[in-house]
């Protein structure tokens, strides 16, 4: 693919700290290579801001290869931008047109307070995992592989759910700022495997309660989460979470 360059107008959310009210600031992104990623484009803009003696735009990133879940912003109304199944760091500038205006906002949710500019505090997702999104039974040393039968379709489904990188785009895209896709993925990834079953009921209830307590909204099956998820995690995981909730509430001794 031949490299071309773009000139873009950016309207970026700038907010000094959690207390600041915040506002949009307009910047020109000039001579941006279409081979760049979205974050590299922001790097270019930031270099100019630094040279001009201004505060660069704060945004989160780490791996820049779509696996860590650090990056994310809402670009023209879409979490992680317009490309399906792609994190912001893996979104290439060739998906934009010369002269386009890009409105860049942080993920918005009561449970994700803005720390600075595009950086939000997503530790609420960690709080949910800490509430029981793991396996605490002692599974001993590696067993003989065939002792513990795992149907291949279950291991596939579990792996699909485990692809969740915890970026929070599902929450950002949900009209209700619900975390059901994230929690559904965590529940599914564990409960589909034999090691995850003993604690299934307790896990379903404690993750749910933590999620409610942290101020996430209620799922109303709008399916926006699934549409923006960079790992294309299916809402069938939310249905599984709903089933696990029913089983835990009416079929277990957990209160």
């Amino acid at each position: 693919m031949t490299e071309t360059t773009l000139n873009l107008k950016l309207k970026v959310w700038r907010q000094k700290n959690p207390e600041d009210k915040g506002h949009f600031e307009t910047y020109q992104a000039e001579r941006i290579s279409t081979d760049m990623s979205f974050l590299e484009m922001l790097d270019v803009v930031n270099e100019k801001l630094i040279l001009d003696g201004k505060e660069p735009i704060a945004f989160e990133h780490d791996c820049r290869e779509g696996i860590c879940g650090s990056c994310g912003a809402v670009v023209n109304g879409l979490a992680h931008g317009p490309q399906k199944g792609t994190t912001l760091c893996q979104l290439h500038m060739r998906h934009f047109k010369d002269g386009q205006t890009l409105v860049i906002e942080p993920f918005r949710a009561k449970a994700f307070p803005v720390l600075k500019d595009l950086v939000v505090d997503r530790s609420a997702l960690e709080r949910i995992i800490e509430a029981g999104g793991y396996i605490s039974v002692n599974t001993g040393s590696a067993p003989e592989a065939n002792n513990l039968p795992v149907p291949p379709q279950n291991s596939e489904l579990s792996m699909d759910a485990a692809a969740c990188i915890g970026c929070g785009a599902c929450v950002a895209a949900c009209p209700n700022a619900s975390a059901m896709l994230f929690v559904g993925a965590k529940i599914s990834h564990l409960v589909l495997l034999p090691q995850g079953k003993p604690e299934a009921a307790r896990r379903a209830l404690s993750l749910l309660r933590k999620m409610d307590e942290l101020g996430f909204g209620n799922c109303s099956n709008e399916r926006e989460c699934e549409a923006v998820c960079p790992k294309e995690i299916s809402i069938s995981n939310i249905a599984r979470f709903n089933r696990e909730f029913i089983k835990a509430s009416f079929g277990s001794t957990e209160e």
Partner: protein
Amino acid sequence: MNWLIRTFSSSIGKKQIMAVTGLGFSSFVLIHLLGNLTIYQGREAFLSYVEKLHSLGGLVTLAELGLVVFALLHIGLGLILFVQNLQARPVRYAVKKRAGGRTIGSITAPYTGFLILVFIIVHLLKFRLVDKAATDDFIILSNTFTQVGYVFFYILGVIVVAVHVSHGFWSGFQTIGLNHPKYMPLVQQLGMLFSVLLGAGFASIPLYLFTTL
């Protein structure tokens, strides 16, 4: 009983009640429609259906009580969920765009729900909570649907119900956990078909009466 309260005060618990009551309403409106369609066999057939229904006596009262309880739950919890969902995003986005999941039905669900409430109140005042000693249901119907205003009101009302159900039907299945690659596409298609037939079926009656009487 503490566990029961905890169960139904959680977000998924409330949604379970929304789904069960919503799907309950869906079955009710289907039966209601099938009964009403007897009007196409003429006045006598319609009145004999009404009579048969009322001869069930206590069963009808029980069903009505059930509907009232379902309605209180569905409306009350719908309102709570709606407010909580607004609170979950105190700062809105400057630019909103559909990523491909939302539908007209899902976007408007809380609002169509509220309009249905208005519609049901008018509907009950008009057809259920009236003294029928000196008249019968067919006369009330024909008096109502010879007035063009009521014809429009009813048609709009049932369209709103259809739009609500176009999302509600499959959403209810998803909420109670019945999502499976084998049958979810079927559930979604059935939901669309159901809401179209529901809207068309109910809307046809005032139109029929208006044009033939």
